[in-house]
């Protein structure tokens, strides 16, 4: 092995992955830990890493309490109904009560937030969204993290957490490799804040060939948040809650500003409104508590994202696709037309490229929409992630074990996609979660909880061997064949990824089967996953770049396996439009008004599943419009 081992010792806080969550953690940690050693490890360059690398045209989570717009509990209620009840409301409330202080700082740092010229408040796109010129959102935020951190290790892909050998279930750092030099990096740290990303590309994407990178969530979102934490034995929650997005076809350009700001709407191929006709039957399945079009029409209460997907999927399957976004009306206004294009250029340039290539001018034709392949993440309209402690003053006993945003592994904290049960955090909420985790991690260290961590050379060397094994596999076996990519001894990372995606699509409810699965399919899929897991031990990487892809694949695999177990465990169809359990098509509040929690035993790889109680915020949270409707006997 020619690669050097580089050890960074005496770290207090290691930020593992620096997207919006990780940068928030690094920034805030400096305030609470003036003399602490704060180190960032990021597999790309923090100026353009994570899901926000390309920029954003909106901040989707801002309360606007200073302008009298919303209180945190309003947001909790919104997230709750959108996720069909399944939210960690303590974490959601906590994020929402701090998120405005994050956004106001972004304003200070130079992020161009559009203002409402009449009221002076931030320009609203929707009730929760404010509009920004966010092309440089990530570099602006990264600057704050760089100012706080002692060291930033760009291009270091973390593969595993280091575990303390003197106290069980306590973290002691992380290891990985530099994706350019190949050097092995060891970070010994008292606390680790996992800011790594959710997972794109685990379900077969609709795009093929060259377009396989045109996924909704970034292709570099390799599920490493889950891969790192699951492998170490952290408990996970709501991993079945994958998300499907209704987006502009092929380019997956965003629709939020179109719906909310430009007031565009959808219709079927024949120009008909289609959504409402699917709702009566759907209401029978999920119950009026979750789908009440009348209440949604007269109040702020949203129709859950998944249920709107369900109407699109049903209409297309009934032969009246494609669904179109009606843009021709709004785009006659030159100002709105410009916003429509800026919206893409600020966050999904590829959609602008596609419309330029296909001569789609939304002023003269209504573009097609489609439902995407599923994604596993925890900050958009879904809440996959680690089972974390909430804040002391909000959380019930079952949700609290000492430090805010700490996972079930001592000293391991989460932010952004890493934290489960906290949908609708988006960029600003993820940064806020990083800040919360950083404060708690500093307290954890100050309380003396990280004393006496012992990481032996044996553990460090074992991981090194494991990390570089794909290069060894390639070296040993590639010369057995004349040339080419077909080898009887190993798969390359792309071949492994294709196999994973096909398996997830067909057995776990991808787009190819109209998001349908059942207990039998899931059981077969799990067996195939187990064999895939064996083959991934033999994966071959021809160079350091392929080694990066190999480890991304292993993280995606661990995330996928967890999705399988969770999907099999929850015997109901909680989110029609995200996925369907054909053997249990109804929502079942009697048995499944709970959060699902899993743990993979790091020694045996065996999964254990449990139900965790679901707590709701009640009290003044009641929506006044909805209360009025109820009083009038509509509910």
């Amino acid at each position, binding site marked *: 092995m020619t690669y050097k081992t580089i050890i960074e010792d005496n770290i207090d806080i290691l930020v593992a992955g620096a997207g919006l969550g990780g940068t928030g953690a690094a920034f805030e940690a400096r305030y609470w830990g003036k003399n602490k050693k704060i180190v960032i490890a990021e597999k790309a360059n923090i100026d*353009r890493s994570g899901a926000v690398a390309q920029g954003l045209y909106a901040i989707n989570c801002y309360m606007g309490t200073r302008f009298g717009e919303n209180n945190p509990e309003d947001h909790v209620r919104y997230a709750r109904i959108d996720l069909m009840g399944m939210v960690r409301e303590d974490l959601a*409330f906590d994020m929402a009560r701090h998120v405005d202080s994050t956004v106001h700082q972004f304003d200070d*740092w130079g992020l161009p937030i559009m203002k409402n010229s009449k009221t002076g408040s931030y320009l609203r796109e929707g009730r929760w969204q404010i509009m920004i010129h966010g092309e440089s959102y990530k570099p602006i935020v990264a600057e704050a993290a760089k100012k706080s951190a002692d060291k930033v290790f760009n291009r270091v892909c973390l593969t595993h957490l280091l575990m303390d050998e003197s106290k069980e279930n306590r973290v002691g750092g992380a290891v990985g490799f530099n994706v350019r030099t190949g050097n092995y990096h060891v970070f010994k740290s008292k606390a680790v804040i996992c800011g790594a990303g959710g997972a794109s590309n685990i379900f077969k994407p609709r795009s093929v060939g060259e377009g396989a990178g045109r996924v909704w969530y970034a292709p570099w979102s390799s599920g490493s948040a889950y891969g790192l934490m699951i492998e170490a034995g952290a408990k996970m929650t709501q991993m079945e809650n994958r998300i499907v997005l209704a987006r502009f076809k092929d380019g997956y350009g965003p629709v939020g500003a179109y719906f909310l700001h430009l007031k565009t709407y959808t219709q079927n191929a024949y120009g008909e409104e289609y959504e409402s006709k699917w709702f009566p039957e759907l209401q029978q399945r999920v119950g009026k508590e979750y789908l009440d079009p009348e209440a949604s029409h007269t109040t702020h209460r949203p129709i859950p994202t998944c249920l709107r997907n369900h109407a699109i999927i049903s209409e297309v399957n009934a032969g009246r696709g494609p669904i179109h976004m009606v843009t021709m009306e709004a785009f006659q206004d030159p100002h709105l037309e410009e916003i429509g294009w800026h919206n893409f250029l600020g966050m999904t*340039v590829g959609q602008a490229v596609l419309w*330029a*290539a296909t001569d789609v001018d939304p002023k003269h034709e209504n573009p097609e929409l489609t439902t995407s392949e599923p994604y596993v993440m925890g900050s958009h309209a879904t809440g996959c992630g680690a089972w974390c402690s909430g804040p002391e003053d909000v959380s019930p006993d079952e949700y609290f074990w000492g430090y805010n945003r700490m996972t079930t592994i001592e000293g391991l904290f989460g932010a952004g996609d890493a934290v489960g049960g906290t949908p609708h955090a988006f960029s600003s909420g993820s940064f806020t979660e990083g800040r919360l985790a950083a404060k708690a991690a500093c307290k954890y260290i100050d309380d003396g909880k990280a004393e006496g961590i012992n990481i032996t050379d044996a553990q460090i060397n074992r991981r090194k061997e494991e990390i570089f094994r794909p290069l060894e596999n390639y070296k040993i076996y590639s010369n057995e064949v004349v040339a080419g990519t077909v080898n009887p001894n190993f798969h390359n990372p792309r071949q492994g990824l294709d196999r994973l995606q096909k398996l997830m699509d067909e057995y776990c409810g991808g787009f190819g089967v109209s998001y349908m699965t059942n207990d039998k399919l899931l059981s077969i899929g799990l067996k195939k996953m187990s064999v895939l897991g064996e083959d991934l031990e033999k994966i071959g990487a021809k160079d350091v770049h392929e080694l990066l892809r190999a480890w991304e694949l292993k993280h995606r695999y661990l995330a996928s396996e967890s999705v399988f177990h969770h999907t099999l465990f929850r015997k109901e169809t909680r989110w029609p439009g995200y996925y369907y359990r054909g053997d249990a098509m109804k929502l079942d509040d009697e048995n499944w*008004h709970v959060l699902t929690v899993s743990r993979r035993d790091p020694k045996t790889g065996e999964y254990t599943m449990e139900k965790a109680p679901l707590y709701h*915020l009640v009290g003044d949270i009641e929506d006044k419009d909805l209360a009025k409707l109820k009083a009038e006997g509509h509910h």
Partner: protein
Amino acid sequence: MPTFVYMTRCDGCGHCVDICPSDIMHIDKTLRRAYNIEPNMCWECYSCVKACPHQAIDVRGYADFAPLGHSVRVIRDEEKGTIAWRIKFRNGKKDMDLLAPITTKPWGTGYPELAQEPEPSTEMRDSQLLYSEPKYVRMDEGGLHTLESNGLEIKEGVYY
């Protein structure tokens, strides 16, 4: 739309290699210029296009669904604090220039020096407050929202 690099414009400076979030812009060892080594892991994020000092990098829409003959070009200028786009349709009927700000401040300014801030008190440490709070929550002197202040309870069960 994977990126590609024009042979005559690239001087192999490596800015694109340094910034690419997907680690797919690499230098060809023979030609000593950059190229996209893995187009099917390209998100068309334009990070490399924006970073290139010679406008040597462009994008050609994904072969599986985008016809040839379009153009989306960009110049990002940190000093001016702007980004300028030009979109040209395949049929030549649309040719748009769009300009947007990327920052409201001179680049790299406006950040607090957290290490120089006064040491937070024990009371602050034991509270739920983060840096700059409570002031930055509402830009006034009000406190942080709590269950008590907002008249809330957290209860197990089904409530709608």
